[in-house]
């Protein structure tokens, strides 16, 4: 150890007086030589390789690896400057490959890997129905019972996300709101950036309410003004004082889900708040497994204590009440479906960009190999004067590492920009009514480590083969000034051919993957949904918060609809509780009077409450019977319209119109009611485009009990829906200035629901195209190189009478072989791996032959086209100068 320290010390000293030591060594050797020359017996002996000797001596007083690394870097920079085209291309290729990897990885990091910025995030668990059940929330009584279990939690909190409207009337200004339990901030250990955070004292029944702003909202909405604390803000028509601002790093407890304003759960005036999400810190010493055992034992009694008939229909579902709650470690935040829907696509894309990087690497490797020919002589000279091969390989690797790191640096900037683009894709929530996904690009250590790791790995990947091959040069022929001997070149050509074959295989794989995703997206986008999404403006009206008495609400909505219908361009307008593809659903039974009609669960169908004109507004065609009319009132006979699937299921082989069935629902009143089927409509997608047709029943608004619900108006127009917003808001305000409303378009809602497919199609389409381009460039480069190497052979062939077409065929046959092997391997790869995509595909098989064939044809054609240019050049070769050259 001491010895080692001493030697390090010596070396450090050397760094300071490098020149002194150089001259000393010079002197020492000169002295030796002089001594020897004075003795004739020795004078004839060789002194040996002085350069090598000096090199070996130097190694003992320096840090050879590090110093030579710096030498290499200097040399590499000089070389890079001298071959700017190669350097720029390499850096760009790397930037593209690494940028894509970094962008996707940073999304994965933000969504799945990053811990919450709170105290001891690793202690947090979420308490919820099992992840694979369709439920994610708890009824409030269950949360309250669990909160008081001091044997399980050292702290617990609950929250619910809700859109708060800050406007005091008119068009809504929605902010992302949170109802939180009093312990929310204190349990998380999140402090205030101004004022104070909420405490348990703020949360009691009948509390006056207090709002905590998020730091981001405070900055964007109040400009970071400290006087914001103490001001009153209007949330859903209620005035609430701002008591503080939460810490700058805190965005909420679910990745991608920020909040703007948090108020205590007790402030439940505005919206009937019936479900919460819960997290807690387990008591020290209690393992997750023990907690789960407790929860499993506790669940039946918790659910048994719920009122038999909750307002929320899901809480009444026996399926829900049979669930066992689970504790799930949640250091990375609450499992939020809007974002977890993107986990699989992101993982898939991570693999795709990995393959893109491989393709970029093989392109660079080909370039390097071609360039190595030009360097043959330099390398031979260096080998001849005593450089070790390892030393040369190291130097070539350094050059590549440098280019790769430069590419990575550029790639990080690219990634930043690509991240914003990606967020644009996924921020629109798949489900309507969900807050927008909010993610921040921040370079944490994980991303930096990933990027530099990828850069280093990539440089090794693309540099190792070329540098080993190029240092295997045969000294003699290279020194003799030959352009290098034939065997050497054939080896070079052969290696590039292997690399390009691999590249073609990978490119084909990516093309097939993108083909599948594009087809899947196309299938989804063009399927017959049973409605026409274009040109429909949706108006979400909130009469509850406008404090309109319940009894007057239906009439007021009628009034609004009547005015909307008179607007220019409007062809029809209607209202409904549910608009299709909003991922919300209501259910109820159909008790048909036929003997063998489905009963129990089989009798359950989807239901919707609609006004006359609903089917016209959405362009869902009526197959039989009639639509609801103004004549269907609370006092007339109860009527229903069912879809084709329901008609087939409950009235098989009969005309459903004119038949009766009975049903019960909280909206129909206390008793079972008898309904007359007056019409059958075409099957239309209900909650999601991906679902199969499901039996659905529609009931008229006028015959339902007026319940406090949020209604959506559908307005079909001949104009652009956005052009209708101004006149529509004027019309609504002319009815009552206190009404809160918000616009969206039906098309947007439908498109957003395809977010996952669109993301996959767009990204994989882009990368598939990129792969095709890279493969084309690769084939072109490699064939140009091969043709240049075979000039002599081609010249001779032509001299002895080979025609142009023979030469053309000769070169193209070469490419054909490469393409054939590459495509075969790529096809096999695709057949073996695309099964993994099955869950992400819609309406297309993972081994879709049409896609496969199309991709192979596309790649083979572009490959042949790329090779045609060098082949033609070869066939136009003038044999005489070539032969004279030799």
């Amino acid at each position, binding site marked *: 150890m001491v010895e080692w320290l001493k030697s390090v010390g010596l070396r450090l000293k050397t760094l300071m007086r490098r020149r002194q030591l150089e001259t000393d060594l010079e002197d020492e050797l000169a002295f*030796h030589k002089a001594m020897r020359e004075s003795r004739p017996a020795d004078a004839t002996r060789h002194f040996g390789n002085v350069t090598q000797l000096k090199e070996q001596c130097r*190694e003992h007083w320096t840090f050879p690896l590090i110093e030579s690394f710096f030498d290499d870097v200097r040399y590499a920079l000089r070389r890079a400057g001298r071959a700017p085209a190669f350097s720029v291309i390499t850096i760009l290729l790397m930037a593209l490959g690494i940028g894509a990897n970094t962008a996707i990885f940073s999304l994965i990091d933000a969504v799945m890997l990053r811990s919450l910025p709170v105290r001891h995030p690793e202690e947090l668990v979420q308490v919820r129905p099992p992840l694979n059940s369709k439920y994610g929330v708890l009824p409030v009584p269950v949360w309250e019972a669990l909160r008081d279990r001091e044997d399980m939690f050292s702290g617990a909190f609950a929250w619910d996300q809700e859109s708060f409207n800050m406007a005091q009337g008119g068009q809504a200004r929605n902010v992302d709101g949170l109802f939180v339990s009093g312990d929310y901030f204190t349990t998380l250990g999140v402090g205030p950036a101004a004022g104070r955070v909420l405490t348990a004292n703020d949360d009691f029944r009948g509390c006056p309410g207090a709002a905590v702003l998020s730091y981001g909202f405070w900055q964007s909405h109040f400009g970071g003004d400290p006087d914001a604390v103490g001001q009153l803000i209007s949330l859903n028509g209620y005035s609430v004082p701002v008591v503080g601002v939460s810490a700058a790093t805190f965005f909420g407890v679910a990745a991608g889900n920020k909040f703007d304003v948090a108020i205590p759960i007790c402030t439940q005036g505005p919206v009937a708040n019936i479900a919460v999400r819960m997290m807690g810190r387990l008591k020290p010493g209690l393992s997750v497994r023990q907690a789960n055992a407790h929860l499993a034992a506790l669940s039946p009694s918790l659910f048994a204590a719920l009122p038999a008939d909750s307002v929320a229909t899901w809480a009444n579902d026996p399926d829900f009440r049979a669930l066992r709650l689970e504790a799930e470690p949640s250091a990375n935040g609450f499992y939020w479906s809007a974002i977890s829907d993107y986990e699989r696509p992101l993982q898939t894309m991570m693999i795709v960009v990995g393959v893109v990087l491989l393709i970029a690497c093989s392109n660079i490797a080909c370039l390097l190999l071609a360039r190595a020919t030009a360097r043959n002589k330099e390398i031979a000279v260096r080998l001849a004067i005593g450089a070790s091969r390892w030393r040369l390989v190291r130097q070539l690797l350094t050059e590549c590492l440098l280019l790769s790191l430069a590419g990575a640096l550029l790639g990080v900037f690219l990634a930043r920009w690509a991240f914003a683009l990606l967020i644009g894709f996924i921020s629109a929530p798949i489900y309507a009514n969900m807050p927008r996904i909010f993610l921040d690009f921040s370079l944490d250590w994980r991303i930096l480590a990933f990027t530099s790791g990828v850069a280093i790995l990539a440089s090794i990947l693309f540099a190792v083969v070329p540098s080993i091959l190029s240092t295997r040069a045969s000294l003699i022929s290279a020194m003799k000034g030959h352009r290098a001997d034939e065997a050497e070149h054939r080896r070079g050509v052969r290696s590039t051919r292997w690399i390009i074959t691999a590249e073609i295989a990978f490119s084909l794989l990516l093309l097939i993957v993108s083909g599948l995703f594009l087809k899947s997206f196309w299938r989804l986008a063009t399927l017959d949904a049973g409605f026409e999404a274009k040109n429909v403006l949706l108006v979400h009206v909130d009469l509850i918060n406008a404090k309109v008495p319940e009894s007057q609400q239906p009439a007021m909505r009628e009034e609004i609809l009547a005015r909307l219908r008179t607007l220019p361009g409007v062809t029809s307008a209607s209202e409904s509780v549910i608009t299709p593809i909003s991922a919300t659903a209501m259910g109820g039974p159909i008790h048909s009077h036929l003997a063998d009609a489905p009963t129990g669960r089989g009798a359950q169908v989807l239901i919707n409450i609609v006004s006359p004109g609903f089917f016209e507004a959405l362009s869902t065609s009526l197959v039989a019977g009639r639509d609801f009319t103004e004549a269907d009132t609370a006092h007339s006979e109860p009527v229903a319209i069912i879809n084709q699937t329901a008609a087939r299921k409950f009235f098989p082989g009969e005309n459903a119109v004119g038949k009766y069935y009975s049903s019960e629902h909280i909206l129909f009143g206390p008793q079972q009611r008898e309904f007359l089927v007056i019409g059958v409509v075409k099957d239309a997608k209900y909650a999601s485009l991906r679902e199969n047709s499901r039996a659905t029943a529609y009931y008229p608004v006028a015959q339902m009990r007026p319940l406090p619900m949020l209604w959506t108006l559908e307005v079909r127009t001949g104009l652009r829906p956005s052009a209708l917003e101004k006149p529509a808001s004027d019309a609504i305000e002319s009815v009552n200035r206190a009404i809160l409303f918000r616009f969206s378009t039906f098309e947007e809602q439908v498109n957003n629901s395809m977010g996952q497919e669109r993301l996959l199609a767009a990204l994989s389409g882009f990368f598939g195209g990129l792969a095709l381009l890279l493969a084309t460039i690769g084939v072109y480069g490699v064939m140009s190189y091969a043709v240049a190497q075979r000039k002599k052979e081609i010249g001779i062939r032509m001299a002895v009478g080979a025609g142009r077409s023979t030469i053309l065929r000769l070169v193209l046959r070469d490419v054909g072989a490469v393409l054939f092997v590459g495509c075969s391997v790529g096809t096999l790869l695709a057949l073996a791996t695309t099964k993994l995509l099955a869950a992400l595909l819609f309406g297309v098989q993972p081994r879709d032959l049409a896609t496969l064939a199309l991709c192979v044809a596309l790649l083979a054609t572009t490959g042949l086209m790329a090779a045609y240019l060098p082949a033609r050049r070869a066939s136009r070769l003038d044999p005489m100068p070539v032969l004279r050259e030799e």
Partner: protein
Amino acid sequence: MATDNGSAALLQGTLDLLILKTLTRREMHGYEVAESIHANSQQALSVEEGALYPALHRLESRGLLSSRWDISANNRRAKYYRLTPAGRKQLREAVESWQRTSIAVSRILEST
């Protein structure tokens, strides 16, 4: 380390041992070290410069030798090497281990 024609190739590390041993007597410059080894082995071993100087520098960097510049007998600037205490200790250990090895090797060679 190279040997003259016919003589046995030396095990690695032997050159270090020879240099250390040679320097026990007095301070020497590189040329003298080579000469001394040559002479003391009755011309059996000759040390090539290509091996000698890297070895001297290696031993110096390990702290087994120290060096200084002085004027030589023929009035030229020369670098003189001298054994350090650590070098002496290392030599003792190396000699012991060498003798053990050489006895062992001889035994093997003598057994039939």
